[in-house]
């Protein structure tokens, strides 16, 4: 609760809304105590006095009545009617919603069909029909506005209740022999109440506006009693000659509705957990770069990641997702990058082409060189021209990585058209060719399919075809087979392997699966907590792992036909990268750890191509 209030008031606009609303409410509550003139006493001699005249701070209206007094009385009436309408609508609507949601079945069906029909009306038609039947008047306007809003509450609360009614604690209450009424009142209602209150806080502004509107039309409060709406309605005839009589009540309605809106937004934002983590930010076209330190010298590799640092800045915390990673590939080579979830392997991959979502991602150091050219901090257009054309990506889970509303043919064609000036028909022909290349049967008809019409393996092939569209030199494959079953996985791996041999592609293959690494990769780098802990030729690392972490990771892989063997899970969890320990990050989970492991920085060393970041390696390298 206190974090909620803190969040609410950190939001300056919401605080402003709260202050305005509080001032209005206090002024209105104090009406009986204030030395105000009688709002209904007419004095035709004093009609249309301008604001700031003696005795009339806001002037007088067409009958010479004091506007300030009428404004405060009118505001009081409008607020009272609006809040009353909200309470009535919330009570009846929620009761209907809870009953529909709790009992379900036919009760639910009949109630919700009726609610749907009520919601099929533009709301004011319903309100007008009710006022027409009951006759104009403030009470009838209140009834109309409340009635019109009942379906809104019924539908929202029903949705919440349906979710709750299936939960265990309701079943438990039922098994304990509690009656329906008791379950609803003691078990359901307390859980639904916060939602009702929030729904009310977001609609009360509307209801004040709606009742004011009906009064403005002459269908609500009747003279001499006046709420804000009827004040405005009465003033309309004199609007051109004496605008202040219209502006005063109009501005008040505006202030009330605005302050309630501000407060309502603040409440909603404070309750939305996504806003706290900053996850509602849209990612920029390229990752932010705030590079400090020296920029490493170019090498003659095709793609070289050099001492890369990528962090996530969330609030005051810095998550060091990648803390100084260096990797390189040559044409035709396949490099495996392996590690647990959260080891920083995907972030490393995405940093290459500036695809780490920012905010919160920031590249803080190092270089990424494609044919010697540093891409970190390169202008957007430079990066865009390389993306897909020279360095292409294959992502995990093609159901979420392919656009659901474009056909796969269009998505493939677009990849080509983004880099080459060719005709649409030519692009489509190429798209079909690409689908054939990745061995999708009936490519001519499949090209018009949408992603949801394909199987998982087929979609992944589309993902690969898209990466191949512009015949890139490097493909970065980020767990491209994780979402697939084993036979499809084998086919995809074979396909990638063929492509690399046929076309001289360099592949950076990111995975958490040693089996896949063994099948495909020439070299492998093992990552832990944002750093490389071991690297070397695949067979050397697999046969004789030097880092205790690598050894235990390999020990986790079950072997087919290996008989009964105890699978040794690694105790503990990877460290949170906002708060890395000094020295070896694996030390807390390592059974060989010594004092010296925790003392300070440990270098990645060994004789090339092997290297390990450990003081007490399992094997000398």
């Amino acid at each position, binding site marked *: 609760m206190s974090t909620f209030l803190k969040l609410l008031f950190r939001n300056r606009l919401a605080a402003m809304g709260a202050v305005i609303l509080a001032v209005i409410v206090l002024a209105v509550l104090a009406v009986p105590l204030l030395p105000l003139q009688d709002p209904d006493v007419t004095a035709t001699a004093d009609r249309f006095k301008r604001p700031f005249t003696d005795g009339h701070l806001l002037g007088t209206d067409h009958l010479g009545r004091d506007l300030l007094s009428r404004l405060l009385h009118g505001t009081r009436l409008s607020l009272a009617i609006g809040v009353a309408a909200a309470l009535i609508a919330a009570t009846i609507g929620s009761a209907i919603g809870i009953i529909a949601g709790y009992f379900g079945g036919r009760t639910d069906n009949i109630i919700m*069909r009726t609610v749907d029909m009520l919601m*099929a*009306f533009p709301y004011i038609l319903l309100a007008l029909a009710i006022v*027409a039947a009951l*006759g104009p008047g403030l009470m009838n306007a209140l009834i109309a506005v409340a009635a019109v809003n009942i379906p809104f509450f019924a539908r929202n609360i029903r949705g919440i209740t349906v979710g709750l009614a299936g939960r265990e604690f309701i079943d438990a209450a039922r098994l304990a022999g509690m009656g329906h009424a008791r379950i609803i009142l003691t078990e359901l209602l307390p859980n639904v109440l916060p939602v009702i209150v929030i729904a009310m806080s977001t609609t009360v502004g509307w209801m004040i*506006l709606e009742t004011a509107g009906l009064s403005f039309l002459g269908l609500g409060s009747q003279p001499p009693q006046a709420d804000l709406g009827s004040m405005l309605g009465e003033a309309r005839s004199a609007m051109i000659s004496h605008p202040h009589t219209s502006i005063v009540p109009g501005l008040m309605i505006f202030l009330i509705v605005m302050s309630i809106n501000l407060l309502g937004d603040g409440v909603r934002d404070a309750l939305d957990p996504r806003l706290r983590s900053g996850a509602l930010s849209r990612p920029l076209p390229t990752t932010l770069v705030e590079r400090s330190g020296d920029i490493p010298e170019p090498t003659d590799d095709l793609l070289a990641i050099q001492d890369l640092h990528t962090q996530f800045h969330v609030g005051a915390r810095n998550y060091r997702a990648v803390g100084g990673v260096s990797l390189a590939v040559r044409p035709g080579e396949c490099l495996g990058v392996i590690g647990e979830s959260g080891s920083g392997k995907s972030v490393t991959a995405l940093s290459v082409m500036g695809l780490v979502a920012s905010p919160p991602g920031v590249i803080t150091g190092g270089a990424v060189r494609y044919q010697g050219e540093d891409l970190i901090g390169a202008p957007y257009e430079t990066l865009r021209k390389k993306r897909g054309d020279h360095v*292409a990506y294959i992502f995990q889970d093609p159901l979420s990585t392919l656009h659901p*509303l474009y056909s796969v043919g269009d998505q493939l064609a677009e990849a080509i058209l*983004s880099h080459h000036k060719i005709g649409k028909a030519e692009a489509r022909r190429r798209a079909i060719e690409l689908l054939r290349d990745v061995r999708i049967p009936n490519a001519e008809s499949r090209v018009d399919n*949408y992603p949801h019409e394909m199987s998982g393996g087929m979609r992944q092939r589309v993902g690969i075809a898209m990466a191949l569209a512009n015949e890139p030199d490097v493909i970065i494959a980020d767990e491209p087979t994780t979402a697939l079953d084993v036979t499809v996985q084998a086919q995809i791996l074979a396909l990638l392997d063929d492509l690399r041999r046929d076309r001289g592609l360099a592949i950076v293959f990111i995975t958490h699966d040693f089996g896949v690494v063994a099948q495909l990769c020439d070299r492998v780098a093992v990552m832990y907590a944002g750093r490389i802990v071991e690297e070397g030729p695949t067979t050397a690392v697999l046969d004789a792992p030097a880092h205790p972490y690598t050894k235990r990771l390999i020990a986790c892989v079950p072997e087919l036909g290996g008989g009964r063997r105890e699978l040794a899970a690694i105790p503990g969890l990877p460290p949170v990268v906002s708060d890395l320990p000094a020295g070896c990050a694996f030390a807390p989970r390592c059974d060989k750890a010594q004092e010296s492991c925790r003392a300070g920085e440990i270098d990645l060393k060994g004789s090339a191509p092997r290297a390990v970041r450990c003081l007490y390696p399992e094997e000398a390298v």
Partner: protein
Amino acid sequence: MGSYIFKRLISAVPVLLGITIIVFLIMSLIPGDPATAILGSYATPENVEKLNRDLGLDKPLVQRYFIWLGNMLTGDFGRSFSLNRPVLDEILERFNATLILAGTSFVICSLLGILAGVVSAARQYGFADKAITFVVLIGISVPSFFLGMMMILLFAVNLGWLPVSGMYAIYGGGDLPDLARHLIMPATALAAVATGVIARLSRSAMLEVLRQDYIRTARAKGVPERRVIMGHALRAAMVSIIPVLGIQAGFVLSGAVYIEIVFQWPGVGRMLVDAILTRDLLLVQGGVVFVAACYVLFNIAVDVAQSLLDPRIKT
């Protein structure tokens, strides 16, 4: 596609029937004798009895409903006593004016709202975003009738740029430019709130979509940013924006009642308010059913648009 439209039209039949039942039930809430309510307390007993017979009010409720429904289906909405002409003739004439006003407003709020939302999302936390958020906040907080009055004061009275009210100039008006000049202020005032709501929703829909993996895919293959935003992201965001356009159309139609009063626009809304004040209940009843039915049909059009956009919806 044709079969989908047909299916949606069929599914609208129960909703339309429900609407007539609801309106009929509300109208039967009238306290006391409806004929007296219609004719006023000074009516002679003979007239009251005659009207009761004409309206079939001496029959039971259910029978009365079906007579009324049957009459409506044959185009007989009854006769307005205050205007002394058939209700349907009056409604059709007035609805034309409302359609011009609300239709223009709807186009304004859809285009402007979506554009503002997209710009706001693409420039999140930037100057444009803050400026749009501020204008939107004002837009959704100003009552449309007050906004309309202030616009008249500024643009018609003080600056003299636009006519104060009405649909056509009394002398020498009647052509399209004349209508357009009369339409600018009411259509804008009516669009204000809906524009704000649509802008807000479009912004959050765009932000939601821009974080999706397929946006990263589009960027990874080198699609220019303008196309990522206006193509990939907006298209996906439209899936959640379109239903809101349907809802906002209802709010525009509702707001038209106030705007028609403020700008003396000869539409259905003003007709309804006048009818309530003169207790011309047949006119109210007919007008409400007619407009609600049009709104239901409009929402079917929205659903069809949605199915054209989203291939995942089975048609």
